[in-house]
């Protein structure tokens, strides 16, 4: 038997069902110095975090910071298909690991995204359905952020390569706003101005 790809209409339906509105669409981020006009340092810090929140609350990040057991997918953040759970190590269940489908790079032939460290964020770092103020408090709480200092949080946001996947998601997915460098600069400036959280 020869392998024949699904007909184009079937494939289109499957892809549409999986990624929802998939068209790549770049959204810009403001630079930290564009907030210099905000005289009050605490208010400036809050404003910087709100800008960084465009990334934090983008589907590329929220999908794998789930509340509960199941990640989401797509710009519309529908439940992950196939049905998967975080498992004991946040890398899936026995027999249904993240790496069962997600390889070390995005795989354009199937449209499945990939990274060597593919996993969901721990439960204590759940962001879905939470306000930006709640996420901000969570980020600074060492009991919930994996014991990270603010400097380590900055390093994670600015340099972690799995975080960086959000700007190179492949498969026609909409990337997170701006660039990882711009995002890192915003988080750095937020910390320098006191790491104030939105009200």
């Amino acid at each position, binding site marked *: *038997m*020869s*392998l024949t*790809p*699904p007909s184009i209409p079937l*494939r289109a339906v*499957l*892809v549409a069902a*999986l990624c929802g509105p998939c068209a790549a669409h770049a959204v810009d981020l403001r630079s930290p110095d564009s907030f210099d006009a905000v005289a009050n340092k605490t208010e400036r810090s809050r404003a910087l975090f709100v800008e960084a929140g465009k990334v934090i609350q983008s589907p590329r990040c929220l999908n794998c910071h789930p509340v509960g057991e199941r990640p989401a997918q797509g710009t519309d953040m529908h439940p992950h*298909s*196939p*049905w*998967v*759970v975080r*498992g004991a190590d946040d890398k899936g*269940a*026995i*027999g*249904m*690991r993240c*790496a*069962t*489908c997600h*390889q*070390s790079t995005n*795989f354009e*032939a*199937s*449209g*499945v995204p990939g990274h060597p460290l593919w996993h969901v964020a721990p439960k204590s770092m759940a962001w879905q359905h939470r306000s930006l103020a709640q996420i901000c408090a969570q980020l600074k709480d060492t009991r919930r952020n994996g014991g990270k200092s603010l400097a380590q949080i900055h390093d994670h946001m600015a340099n972690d390569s799995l975080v960086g996947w959000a700007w190179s998601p492949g498969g026609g997915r909409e990337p997170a706003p701006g660039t990882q460098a711009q995002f890192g600069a915003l988080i750095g400036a937020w910390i320098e101005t006191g790491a104030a959280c939105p009200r």
Partner: protein
Amino acid sequence: MSVSIHVNGQSREVDADPATPLLWVIREDLGLTGTKYGCGIAQCGACTVHVDGETLRSCSAPLSAVAGRKVVTIEGVSSPAAQAVKKAWVELDVVQCGYCQSGQIMSATTLLEKKPKPSDEDIDRAMAGNICRCGTYQRIRAAIHAASRQLT
């Protein structure tokens, strides 16, 4: 280009682009047609193989992903768990049309290799990515429990 791949205990050379989906290589280049093409986008599980003892959807992994790793297909799977699964599959007459069943057996085998006495929840979680258009799910679950009893 020539690429070396370790499949079912043997090292094989194939002339393929490293970006080729592993499933294509398994079926077209190696002639191992027990592994099935279902959806091509890691949604159905028909193409499941083992790589270093873990399940992998071969439609969604490039040939380069298995360099230096051990691939086992339905033709080569032979662990005690695999033998118990195959026996239970026959005894409970699990298969209807059969198209998805090699993938089902590969996932069930991995589950039992790692957890010889799985709960219903363990089975649901491990098998959630293997779709059966004939709806044999209840027989699959019963057969996994039956295989478990053979192993424990």
